[in-house]
């Protein structure tokens, strides 16, 4: 009888193996990242009950009693399985949040890329955006490996590049957000349209930020065309070779039915104000040595997507129409912008206000 009792040793509860296996599953599921405290609590509880199982196992077979331990192990398995489910939910929610963060960053990148289509001076912006794209790609690879901590760090680096790009865009367009400057441009535009209305004549209004040339006849808009500008077209032309497109009120002085750029309309840049500005800039040392004020600014064909040296470029078919509208003496007013409601400027303002 004693021998019979002695041979019958209770086995370690099967829940012990399940609890151990669960720890591995929770770890592989990312427990230490997504629910670190609860994972650690599970590990501590497991270590404690496992130590007591080992103690019990070390007893003589007759004295082994796993009853209480089995209850604890069952509770532990239940809590481990709940933790696994919870990790799945947290992971899913973090993945979603991470995907949303990536999407938001990509949207900012795309918006800036769209904006750079409207200005040529986008080297610094594009360089930063390219680096942002690379970081976003790298973050995506880390997310695929469920390395969310490292992915967050890399995505932050990407966000910093996007921030640089926005800062560069804001710096480029600072002049366009100056209310005094905007008021001057609006005045020029209004005066030009008023002249067209009062004298019942044609006038051209070039809007640099919108990249448009609008034809007014008798003060009413009758046509508009998409245009190209100088490489540094957003800047106000200051001297020869700066590849900027001038701003001001000009007139057509000559029509070329044939030119190197299909057809061309020469305007009377520099005007008096241009000369005053040039002289002032030269006094301040802002003009490179030997550089003149420049000239030969035209509205010409040859395409709107090619970079000019400061001229206003149009597609040939559009140039045909503009050429027909124009006469020697037709007003050509070139402004940076006519309204702060332009979407690019609105975005820059929003960035400047909120970051």
């Amino acid at each position, binding site marked *: 009888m004693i021998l019979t009792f002695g041979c019958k040793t209770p086995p370690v509860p099967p829940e012990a193996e399940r609890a*151990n296996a669960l*720890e*591995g599953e929770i*770890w*592989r599921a990312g427990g230490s990242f997504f629910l670190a405290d609860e994972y650690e609590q599970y590990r501590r509880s497991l*270590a404690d009950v*496992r*130590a007591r*199982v*080992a*103690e*019990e*196992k*070390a*007893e003589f077979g007759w004295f082994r009693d796993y009853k209480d331990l089995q209850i604890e192990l069952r509770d532990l398995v239940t809590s481990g399985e709940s933790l696994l489910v919870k990790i799945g939910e947290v992971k899913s929610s973090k993945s979603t949040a991470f995907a949303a963060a990536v999407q938001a960053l990509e949207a900012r990148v795309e918006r800036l890329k769209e904006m*750079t*289509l409207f200005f*040529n001076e*986008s*080297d*610094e*912006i*594009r*360089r*930063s*955006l*390219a*680096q942002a*794209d*690379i*970081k976003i*790609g*790298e973050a995506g*690879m*880390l997310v695929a490996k469920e390395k969310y901590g490292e992915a967050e760090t890399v995505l932050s680096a990407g966000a910093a590049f996007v921030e640089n790009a926005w800062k560069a865009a804001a710096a480029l367009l600072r002049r366009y957000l100056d209310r005094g400057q905007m008021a001057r441009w609006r005045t020029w535009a209004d005066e030009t349209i008023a002249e067209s209305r009062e004298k019942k004549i044609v006038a051209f209004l070039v809007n640099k930020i919108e990249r448009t040339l609008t034809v007014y006849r008798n003060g009413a808009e009758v046509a508009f065309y998409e245009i*190209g500008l100088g*490489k540094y077209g957003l800047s106000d032309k200051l001297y020869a070779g700066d590849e900027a497109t001038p701003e001001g009120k000009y007139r057509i002085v000559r029509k070329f039915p044939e030119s190197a750029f299909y057809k061309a309309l020469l305007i009377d840049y520099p005007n008096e104000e241009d000369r005053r500005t040039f002289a002032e800039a030269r006094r301040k040392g802002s003009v490179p040595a030997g550089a003149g004020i420049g000239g030969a600014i035209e509205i010409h064909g*040859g*395409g709107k*997507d*090619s*970079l000019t040296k400061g001229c206003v470029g149009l597609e040939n078919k559009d140039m045909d129409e503009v050429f027909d509208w124009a006469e020697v003496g037709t007003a050509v007013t070139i402004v940076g912008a006519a309204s702060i409601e332009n979407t690019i400027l609105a975005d820059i303002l929003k960035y400047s206000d909120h970051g």
Partner: protein
Amino acid sequence: MKKGLIKNLVVVVAIAFALAACKQPTALIDGTKAAIDKVTQAGADKYAVEELKALNDDLAKAMDEVNAQDKKFFKKFGTAKEMMTQLTAKAAELEAQIPAKKEAAKNLAVQIQGEAQAALTEATDLLAKAPKGKGTAKDLEALKADLAGAQTAFPEIQAALDAGDFIAAQDKAKSVKEKAAAIAEQIKQAMEKVKK
């Protein structure tokens, strides 16, 4: 008979005291822990993550056994010693595998770095050849700036290689390669525009 009984009793008590005096195999435990630390230092935390976790889990189980025996009067550390010995051997085995795993990761990173460089070179060559004709000058200027950005990111790959972070180097190289390839594709599209 009485003498024999007393003699046996003395032997039993002596054995009992001898067993009770058994101490933890401290040197073996320390040696096992050191072996696992060594394999961690060798890079198992990056290149053999699952295997390292299994080693640490096994160490925990072995320590449970040691602690359980330690609480008893008749201590028997045989099982624990065997567990520790096996664990030390497993750690050494894993440590021996790490250099090959690292080398494989490094080779892959260098390979992808080469592919990234090739993609950057292709984009640079295309840009140089692209006709700056009607409708392309602005696009090509923008792509030139994009390429400059990708080239700025390229040295990070070598920095990761130099730091021995071969997995990170692989990811960085892949990302630069993808960006360079995308730029090359856009250059080709711009060139197609000119042909039309």
